[in-house]
């Protein structure tokens, strides 16, 4: 029966009420997990705080497994779920630039909203920078319009690329995530010995 909105089961202005509620839950979870602090987030790169990895990977495997079960039970029409289209070269570049921005800025857009919400000026600075970045991109867009659309592979899934079932992909993800949780726990314990403070507000 799902997804509800694309199937027209929920219509009209309820969309926006739902968006608001989902957004609120999103913001609450991000903030209460500690994502309003850039120093917590950046800890993932220096080994003193892996909260990003934990929250991110847990969310991902829960959603993945859930989505496949929903699909299996016929609760959600996977054909109607938006699978992000793949543009190979632009996405590689985008991921590269964002990785750099991540380690310099310490936020990503979603977390910067919550940082702003609790009064952190660096959150506002990041968001301001983000807006400038989008502006620069859009102004320069004609220069690389062809590149932007290059390498289009369609709404391709991971399983289709590697020619395995998406159930297997999910299983691999779960295993990788759990191994990562354990390894990062060991790393974190070691790194934290030499530090006075590893969690920030």
């Amino acid at each position, binding site marked *: 029966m799902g997804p509800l909105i694309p199937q027209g089961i929920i219509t009209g202005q309820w969309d926006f009420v739902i968006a608001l509620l989902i957004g609120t839950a999103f913001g609450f979870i*991000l903030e209460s997990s500690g994502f309003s602090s850039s120093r917590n987030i950046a800890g993932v790169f220096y080994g003193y705080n892996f909260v990003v990895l934990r929250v991110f990977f847990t*969310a991902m495997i829960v959603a993945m497994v859930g989505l496949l079960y929903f699909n299996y039970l016929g609760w959600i029409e996977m054909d109607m779920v938006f699978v992000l289209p793949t543009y190979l070269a632009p*996405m590689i570049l985008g991921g590269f630039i964002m990785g750099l921005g991540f380690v310099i800025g310490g*936020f*990503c857009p979603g977390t910067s909203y919550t940082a*702003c919400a609790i009064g952190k000026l660096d959150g506002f600075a990041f968001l301001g920078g983000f807006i400038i970045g989008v502006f620069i991109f859009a102004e320069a867009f004609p220069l690389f319009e062809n590149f932007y659309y290059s390498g289009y592979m369609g709404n391709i899934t991971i399983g289709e690329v590697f020619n395995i079932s998406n159930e297997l992909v999910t299983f691999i993800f779960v295993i990788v995530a759990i191994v990562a949780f354990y390894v990062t726990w060991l790393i974190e314990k070691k790194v934290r010995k030499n530090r006075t403070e590893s969690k920030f507000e």
Partner: protein
Amino acid sequence: MKKNSNITKGPRYINPYFGGILLGLLLLATFYIAGRGLSASGAAKLSVVTIIDKIAPAHAEGNAYYDKFIPTDDSSPLFNWLIFGAIGTFFGGMLSGGIYGRLKKLRIEHSPNITGKTRMIAAVVGGMLFGIGSQFGRGCSSGAALSGTASLSFGGLLVMALMFGIGYVFAYFFRKLWI
């Protein structure tokens, strides 16, 4: 949970795995309701489009990128699912900050090794890079990396792997900012 120790020393955050499970369930619910994942960068992008469209409509329509996001029916680009989601994210953050006592006066959080000014510059630069990168990557860490990968999109996996990978590659050069 170890609530007591959290109150006495260090900030009160929820268990990261618990937060992750909540986030995963929220993401699942979002897929179930909306057929798409969570997004954060879209709202900021649409704000830019709206601002340019207000200031210089002719310029906005002449630019192929702005034009993509200006609705044809004259409604504001801001009247969009993404914007309401972002407003919600802001309030949700405020709510959590209020409950856990983190909602305080304006402040800059930075490592003791750098000045507040350095942190602000780094934040702006990081934001700029994110602004550019998220347009190439078709979404940011929530839209492309998290929601994209959760819906098993190959592109989402690509963005996620590169984002964290490159972060580690350059972490050494920017360590002064953080440790």
